[in-house]
């Protein structure tokens, strides 16, 4: 299935532009017409992180006329392993501004629009309406469902990509011509079921593999060439070095783009739709959350406590709270950790930032350890407030 070009051609290319884009212009499928379409195109990249970095660099180099960058975050040292649009001197700067500077350096002819803000239900429709195409490089389910819903409601195509460890997925969602994200994944996973890259890690170069597929598809849609990745899911396994694609059907029962849609406007709260933590975990943590400093106080006073780190062994190896015993969260969820819990000590659970330990806390409390607590903010908070000499990750 080929689709008509998304964008009308600009009137002309300048002499400078002809020189710059000559390697595109001599490809018959792109040519002057295609390059003029790119010049007229307005593309928004949601997130200037792992996927957004290569996507923005190549969209800029390709000569997309207007590039929007939306990101609320600032550059952190742990981003630099994969977010190649940012450099060492950008640490601490807003990602949207740092990315814009790189885009201008690569191609000063690009009109860069900086949205140094979080994408929210209040601003998403207005921001999206100024663009022809969206590239989704966000890192969480809540934003992904919001991007999808806004794109479908506005009738805009978007190029979706997602990564985890060595696995990548990419597709083009365009409800007018094929399925949307909700057709592929009708519901988000319950909290705690699917780890994020911050919890599970990601191979840096995987971002380039998937980000480049996204740009490839964006250019095809804008110029109307080739077979777009509409109705197909591309799956990449970096360890096996295999690409496969499977069909994605438009779901006639889709709540958003199906025959009888029940979602006809944005949801009120996408965080709640995806659940930051489960209800059980939130209930367990309520009134049973201590700070890292409070834990330090308990240790210093020699209180009778049993500190359990519920992260994975490789995380424990990076940094850990002195005296903590490692028992990964999975062992709580399948129940095998419970027999290791001492009856005569107060149990203190922690993880990286407090979400996984809240899930484990629900299990522990359910098993009768009613005075158990967990550390809000996890080991990251310990590093920040108790021992800044330790590494963060």
């Amino acid at each position, binding site marked *: 299935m080929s689709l008509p070009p998304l964008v009308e051609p600009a009137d002309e290319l300048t002499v400078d532009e002809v020189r710059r884009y000559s390697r595109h212009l001599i490809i018959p499928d792109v040519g002057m017409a295609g390059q003029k379409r790119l010049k007229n195109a307005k593309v928004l990249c949601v997130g200037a992180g792992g996927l957004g970095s290569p996507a923005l660099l190549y969209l800029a180099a390709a000569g997309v006329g207007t590039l929007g960058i939306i990101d609320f975050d600032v550059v952190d040292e742990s981003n630099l392993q994969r977010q190649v649009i940012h450099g060492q001197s950008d640490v601490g700067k807003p990602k949207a501004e740092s990315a814009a500077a790189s885009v201008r350096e690569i191609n000063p002819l690009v009109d860069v629009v900086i949205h140094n803000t979080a994408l929210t239900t209040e601003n998403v429709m207005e921001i999206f309406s100024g663009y022809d195409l969206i590239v989704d490089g966000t890192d969480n389910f809540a934003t992904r469902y919001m991007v999808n819903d806004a794109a479908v409601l506005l009738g805009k195509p978007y190029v979706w990509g997602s990564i985890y460890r060595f696995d990548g997925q990419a597709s083009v969602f365009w409800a007018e011509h094929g399925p949307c994200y909700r057709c592929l994944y009708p519901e*988000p996973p319950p909290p705690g079921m699917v780890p994020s890259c911050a919890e599970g890690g990601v191979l840096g170069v995987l971002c380039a593999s998937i980000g480049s597929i996204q740009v490839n598809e964006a250019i095809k849609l804008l110029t109307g060439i080739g077979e777009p990745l509409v109705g197909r899911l591309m799956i990449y396994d970096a360890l096996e070095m295999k690409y496969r694609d499977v069909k994605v059907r438009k779901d006639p029962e889709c709540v958003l783009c199906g025959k009888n849609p029940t979602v006809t406007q944005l949801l009120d709260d996408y965080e709640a739709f995806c659940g930051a933590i489960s209800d059980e975990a939130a209930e367990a943590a309520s009134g049973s959350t201590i700070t890292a400093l409070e834990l330090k106080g308990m240790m210093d006073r020699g209180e009778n406590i049993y500190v359990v780190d519920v992260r994975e062994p490789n995380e424990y190896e990076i940094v850990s709270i002195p005296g903590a015993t490692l028992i990964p969260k999975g062992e709580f969820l399948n129940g095998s950790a419970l027999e290791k819990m001492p009856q005569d000590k107060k149990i203190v659970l922690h993880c990286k930032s407090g979400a996984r330990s809240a899930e484990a806390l629900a299990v522990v409390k359910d098993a009768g350890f009613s005075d158990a607590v967990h550390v809000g903010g996890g080991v990251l908070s310990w590093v920040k407030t108790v021992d800044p000499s330790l590494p963060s990750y």
Partner: protein
Amino acid sequence: MSVSVRIPTILRTYTGGSAEVSGEGATLRDVLAKLDSDYPGIGARILDESGKIRRFVNVYVGEEDVRFAQGLDTPAPDGTQISIIPAVAGG
């Protein structure tokens, strides 16, 4: 009936790191039951408490999403590749 089952990274803790394992069964339901007996616990990551395929996990027999075929009753012909594809959100 012998089939191959592609295991996503996220579930490879159950298969000792294997990306592809062999499976057996006339239908997807049988293949998943055998998979869970070979690799205890993996079934619960694919099926919910009521035995249905979780809505954030897609299972393909060959190129077809079984939600649009016969679900767990989708036949698993000899030599077919079955792929388990969970939602990931990293970026």
